C-alpha cells in the first residue's frame, strides 16, 4: 500500500482529535437546511491556517465528509435536503421516517455513507493519477448527456402522473434559465429585476421547494408530525447491517458511480446521488417501491454522495482542477499552506498527501460512531419535540440557511416565494422533485449543449460531436437502457405471465 508509514502520522492523537472534531462539526453544519458542505468548509478554513499542512487537510476532509453525510438528517427527518447532495435521500428517507422507521433510515444512511466514503478514499489512494485523466476526457458534450441522463430520472420520480412530472421538469428547466445566459450573455426572464440577474440560487430554491410545503402542512393539523417506531430505543444497527449486506451490490455500484461522478469537475454529489438512485431503481426487482420508503434507494444515494468526497479530491490533487465546490475551497487552503498540487504532489510532498488520504479514511470511519450517536439523538429529539416548537424552529433555520448562502435577503424572499409556489403545485398534484431536477440539471445541460454545438460547428459537424464521441455514446446507451428497460421488462413480464396462464 503506498505511503503506509504515513498512516501512523495520521493516527497521532492530534490528527485523531482533529478528525473527530471535524466530522462532528461537519455533521452538525450539514444537518441544518441550507448550510452546505461548501459553506461548512469555507467557514471553518481559517481555523486550519495555524495547523501543519497534513493535519489541516485532515480537518478539512473530515468537515467535508461529515457535512455531506449530515445533509441526510434533515432530508430523512424533515424532507428537506441539508445539502444539495442529499436531494435524492428525501425520496425514500422521509417516507421511511413517516412510517416510523426514521431510526433505521438514519442508521442505513450512516452505514452507506461510511462505505461510500471509504470506497472514494480507496480510489484516491490507489488510482488517483490514472483516474484523473478521466476528468480531462469529459468535454461539454459529455456533460450535456450526463445532465440528460439525470433528467431521465423524472420518469421514475413521477408520483401519479408522468405528464405532470414532465411538466414539473420543464418548469424547473425554465427556472434554471432565469438570469444572464452562460453563453451569449442574454438577460432572460428576469422581469427587469436586478436581484434575478444572477439566476435562482439552487440551495435557496431547494429549501423553499422542499421545506416550505412541509412547514405549511405541519401547522395545518394537530396530528403528530412523525410516528415513533416500536424499536426506537435501539440503533437498529443489526437490522441495518443485514439490509446493507442484502444490498451489497447496490452499495458497491453506487459508491463507484459516486467516485467517478466526483472526479468530473462541477458534477458533484447531487448528480452522483441522482444517477446512483436511477441505476438502483432500474435494476431493482420491485422498482415501484422506490419513492415509498425503499431502503435500497436510501443506500444508493448516501453511498454515492459520500463517495464523491474521495473522487472529487482526485482531479483536485493530481490536476489542480477541483472536482466539487468544496474541493475548490480546499484547493485554496492548500495553496495558502504552500502545497503545490499537480502530478508531482504524490512524489515531492508525499508526506502531506498520504497523511491526508489516510486521515480521510480515519475521518470516514469515525463517522460511524459519531453519526450513529448524533442520528439517534436527532431522531429522538425530533419525534419528541412538540409540533408548536418544531414548526417555527424549522422556519427560522430555513430563513437563516437561505440568507447565509450568499448573505443576501433577496434569496430568502426567493426561497419563500418558491416554497409557496411548490405548495400550490403540490396541492394540484405536481411533485417538487422533478422541478428540482430541472433546476439543477438545466444549466449543466444548456451549457454543455451550447458549447458542444459551437465546438462541433467549428469542427464541421455538430452531430458528430454529439453522437460520435466514445464516452457520449456510452452515456447515450445508458440513457436508452434506463428509458427502455422498464418498458421492455413490463412487456416481456406480461408475455411470460400470459404463457403461464395459458
Amino acid at each position, binding site marked *: 500500500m503506498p505511503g503506509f508509514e504515513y498512516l501512523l502520522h495520521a493516527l497521532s492523537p492530534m490528527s485523531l482529535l482533529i478528525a473527530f472534531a471535524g466530522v462532528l462539526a461537519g455533521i452538525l453544519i450539514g444537518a441544518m437546511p441550507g448550510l452546505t458542505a461548501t459553506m461548512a468548509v469555507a*467557514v471553518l478554513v481559517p481555523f486550519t491556517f495555524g495547523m501543519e499542512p497534513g493535519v489541516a487537510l485532515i480537518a478539512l476532509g473530515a468537515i467535508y465528509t461529515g457535512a455531506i453525510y449530515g445533509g441526510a438528517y434533515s432530508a430523512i427527518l424533515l424532507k428537506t435536503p441539508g445539502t444539495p447532495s442529499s436531494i435524492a435521500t428525501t425520496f425514500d428517507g422521509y417516507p421511511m421516517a413517516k412510517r416510523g422507521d426514521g431510526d433505521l433510515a438514519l442508521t442505513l444512511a450512516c452505514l452507506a455513507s461510511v462505505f461510500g466514503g471509504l470506497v472514494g478514499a480507496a480510489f484516491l489512494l490507489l488510482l488517483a493519477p490514472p483516474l484523473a485523466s478521466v476528468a480531462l476526457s469529459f468535454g461539454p458534450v459529455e456533460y450535456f448527456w450526463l445532465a440528460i441522463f439525470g433528467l431521465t430520472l423524472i420518469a421514475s420520480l413521477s408520483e*401519479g*402522473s408522468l*405528464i*405532470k412530472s*414532465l*411538466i414539473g421538469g*420543464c*418548469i424547473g*428547466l*425554465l427556472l434554471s*434559465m432565469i438570469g444572464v*445566459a452562460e453563453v*451569449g*450573455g*442574454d438577460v*432572460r*426572464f428576469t422581469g427587469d429585476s436586478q436581484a434575478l440577474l444572477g439566476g435562482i440560487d439552487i440551495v435557496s430554491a431547494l429549501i423553499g421547494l422542499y421545506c*416550505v410545503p412541509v*412547514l*405549511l*402542512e*405541519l*401547522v*395545518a*393539523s*394537530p*396530528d403528530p408530525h412523525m410516528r415513533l417506531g416500536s424499536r426506537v430505543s435501539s440503533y437498529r444497527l443489526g437490522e441495518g447491517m443485514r439490509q446493507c449486506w442484502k444490498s451489497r451490490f447496490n452499495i458497491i455500484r453506487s459508491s463507484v458511480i459516486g467516485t467517478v461522478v466526483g472526479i468530473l469537475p462541477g458534477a458533484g454529489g447531487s448528480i452522483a446521488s441522482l444517477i446512483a438512485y436511477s441505476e438502483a431503481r432500474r435494476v431493482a426487482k420491485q422498482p415501484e417501491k422506490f419513492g415509498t420508503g425503499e431502503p435500497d434507494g436510501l443506500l444508493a444515494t448516501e453511498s454515492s454522495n459520500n463517495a464523491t468526497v474521495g473522487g472529487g479530491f482526485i482531479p483536485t490533487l493530481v490536476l489542480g482542477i477541483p472536482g466539487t465546490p468544496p474541493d475548490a475551497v480546499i484547493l485554496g487552503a492548500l495553496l495558502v499552506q504552500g502545497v503545490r498540487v499537480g502530478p508531482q504532489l504524490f512524489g515531492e510532498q508525499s508526506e502531506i498527501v498520504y497523511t491526508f488520504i489516510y486521515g480521510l479514511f480515519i475521518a470516514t470511519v469515525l463517522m460511524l460512531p459519531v453519526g450513529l450517536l448524533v442520528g439517534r439523538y436527532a431522531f429522538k429529539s425530533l419525534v419528541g419535540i*412538540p*409540533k*408548536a*416548537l*418544531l*414548526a*417555527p*424552529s424549522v*422556519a*427560522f433555520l430555513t*430563513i*437563516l440557511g437561505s*440568507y447565509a448562502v450568499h*448573505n443576501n*435577503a433577496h434569496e*430568502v*424572499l426567493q*426561497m*419563500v*416565494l418558491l*416554497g409557496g409556489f411548490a*405548495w400550490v403545485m403540490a*396541492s*394540484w*398534484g*405536481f411533485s417538487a422533485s422533478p422541478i428540482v431536477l430541472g433546476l439543477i440539471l438545466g444549466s449543466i*445541460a*444548456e451549457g454543455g*449543449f*451550447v458549447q458542444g*454545438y*459551437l465546438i462541433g460547428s467549428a469542427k464541421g459537424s455538430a452531430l458528430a460531436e454529439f453522437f460520435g464521441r466514445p464516452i457520449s455514446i456510452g452515456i447515450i446507451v445508458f440513457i436508452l437502457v434506463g428509458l427502455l428497460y422498464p418498458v421492455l421488462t413490463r412487456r416481456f413480464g406480461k408475455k411470460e405471465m400470459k404463457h403461464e396462464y395459458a
Partner: protein
Amino acid sequence: MSTHEMKVRDVWGAVASVIAIAIGVMVLRAARDFDTLGAVFPRSVAVLMIVLGACYVVLALRKPGMNAVRLEGSGLRRLALFCVLLGWALLLEPLGFLTTSLIGYVLGLLIANFDRWTPRMTMIYCGAGCSMVVGLFLLFRFALHVPLPPGILI
C-alpha cells in the same frame, strides 16, 4: 401533504396545465429577443411544455383519474404561516435579523400551537424558542462572522 386522492376529474391539474401552456407561449415570445444560441433551450422547453400541457388537459377532461388531490387541515393556518414567512423575508433588512426572527418565531408559535396556552407552556415555549434564535444569531454573527443584517433595530 395531508391529502386524499379522489377518482374525479382533475380540474386543478387541468388548470395548472393551461397555465403551463400560457407560460410556454410567453417563453416562446420572449425567446424572440434572444440570440440564436440563447434561444435554443428556452424554445425547446417551451414547446415541450405546451405539448405536455395540452396532452394533460385532454386526458384530465376526458376521464376521471387518480391524480386529483383534496387538501385536509386548516387552510387559514397555512396561509397565516406563509404570510409570516413572507413578512420575515421582507423585513430582515429594514428591521434587523434578530428582531425580525424573534417576532417571526413567536408568530410561528402562535400559528402552530393547537393546545390551550398555559403560563407554564408559554414560558417554556417562548424561552426555548428565543434561546435558540439568540444562540444561533450569536454563533453566526460573532463566531462564524456571517454578516446578518443589523437593520434599524438589531
